[in-house]
């Protein structure tokens, strides 16, 4: 009996030591990629595509999206109820602004409950929930920011956004539906943060649209909040019609072709124009 007690004590001590060692090892292995800070946008690549009224280059649009996009008139932004629709969660990688990222910490365990990417002037903040909560019902409220959860894959934070209001894939008119989803991957390499965005929309995209943008850690603070998009009177009386163009009547449809000699099918986001074969087709029959 006495020897049993001694044996028990030894085993318990060994177990405690092992658990402590194991915990230390796991802690070291856990590490932590800290995304917090101010990340400046260098904008060396052009992702917004909003320099001309009709520029859908680089987008894999389907026919329905193309038709709807060409019916869009920017005068819609003068309508109070439509003034804020142009800046969905996708604008995170399309817009010209930097990112301010911070985390909310659970006060007892110290785990990260959420990461937040601060708002810009018109884009809502993105809160990435890390606590394992599920996405809401498909019938739940859809907002401009949507609902986002995240998990780590190695050193990459992978966020998935659903429940976004119907809006725009590009703020010049290519539409997004409320079934669209956004998968965002945040990869930090020293002072460079690469954000990969994979946008899926079963209503308006012929295939997933992929954008990536890199940011550089900055000592200059990026503002954590921006003034929210607030609707205001811009000279258009309530009621009446929605500004639009009828089919084949968009006056800007050939502007990019005239300016840069780019074929209309590329300007209008035909999916095959995103691959090298199309460049060879252009080579065979140069536009200029």
């Amino acid at each position: 009996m006495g020897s049993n007690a001694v044996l028990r004590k030894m085993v318990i001590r060994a177990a405690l030591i092992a658990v402590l060692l194991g915990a230390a090892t796991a802690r070291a292995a856990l590490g932590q990629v800290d995304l917090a800070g101010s990340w400046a946008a260098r904008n060396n690549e052009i992702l917004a595509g909003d320099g001309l009224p009709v520029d859908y280059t680089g987008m894999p649009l389907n026919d329905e999206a193309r038709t709807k996009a060409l019916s869009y008139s920017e005068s819609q932004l003068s309508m109070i109820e439509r003034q804020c629709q142009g800046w969905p969660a996708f604008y995170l990688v399309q817009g010209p602004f930097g990112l301010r990222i911070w985390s909310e910490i659970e006060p007892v365990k110290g785990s990260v409950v959420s990461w937040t990417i601060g708002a810009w002037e018109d884009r809502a903040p993105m809160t990435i929930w890390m606590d394992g909560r599920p996405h809401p019902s498909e019938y739940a409220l859809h907002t401009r920011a949507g609902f986002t959860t995240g998990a780590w894959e190695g050193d990459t934070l992978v966020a998935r956004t659903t429940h976004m209001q119907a809006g725009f894939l590009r703020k010049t008119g290519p539409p997004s539906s409320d079934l669209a989803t956004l998968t965002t991957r945040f990869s930090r390499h020293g002072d460079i943060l690469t954000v990969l965005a994979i946008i899926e929309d079963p209503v308006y995209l012929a295939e997933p649209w992929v954008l990536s943008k890199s940011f550089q850690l900055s000592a200059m603070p990026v503002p954590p909040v921006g003034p929210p998009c607030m609707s205001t009177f811009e000279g258009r009386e309530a009621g009446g019609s929605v500004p639009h163009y009828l089919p084949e009547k968009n006056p800007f449809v050939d502007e990019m072709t005239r300016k840069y000699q780019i074929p209309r099918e590329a300007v209008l986001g035909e999916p095959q124009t995103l691959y090298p074969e199309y460049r060879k087709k252009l080579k065979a029959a140069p536009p200029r």
Partner: protein
Amino acid sequence: MTRQPVLIVVVAALVAIGRLPQVQAQDRGNAAATPRASAPIDFTGYWVAFVTEDWRYRMVTPPKGDYDGVPMTAEARQIAESWDAAADEAAGNQCRSYGAAAIMRVPGRLHITWEDDRTLRIDTDAGTQTRLFHFDAPPAAPGGPTWQGFSSAQWERPARGRGAGPETSMAGGSIKVVTRMMRAGYLRRNGVPYSENAELTEYFELSPYPGGGQLLVVTAVVEDPRYLRQPFIVSSQFKKEADGSRWDPTQCSARW
């Protein structure tokens, strides 16, 4: 106290103790293995450029003077203003926009293979260029500058690991590549220059693509004290292809 709790503690202890040598053995294995054998992810295969960004700077040659987004110095702008595709061609410099600092933005396909246990090789069908990523290599090798320069590579392995909870996986890792000794070339086809003193740092990583596919994402940072006021940073993506059936080598062209 019954024997059951004691047994549970013993099993727990053995499991916990067992983890440490396993982790250490893995680390030792990684240290001893070649870069090829210890690769945390597999980049090999055929990849096609998915041109969703900068379309009009990549799929067609932009007009002279269209340099949006490039932080050029005044000297670089002067050089770009004198860009002459015919002169480049006549001088045998038709590969100027296919150098290491620009080649990943050229629409085309990549074929990635292991040249040997310490060298990853990337062939491009556009411009038929070859890049060699030397693992465990010194920062530069003797010899003159070339279009693709000399690239030193290292794996970047995930710091996070087991025990981190169900929401965490060990997937991932990337390659960091630093390239120097490049011949002076063009960042964009319309004569935006980089000099022989330019340094290119790249990060290669993978991502799942919806429908079971895979994406290769390449983040490139070009630093050039002569022609760039600040680093030029772009990221490009490629989709994995099942095979090389669409591989179509074409020569460099200064005009297209």
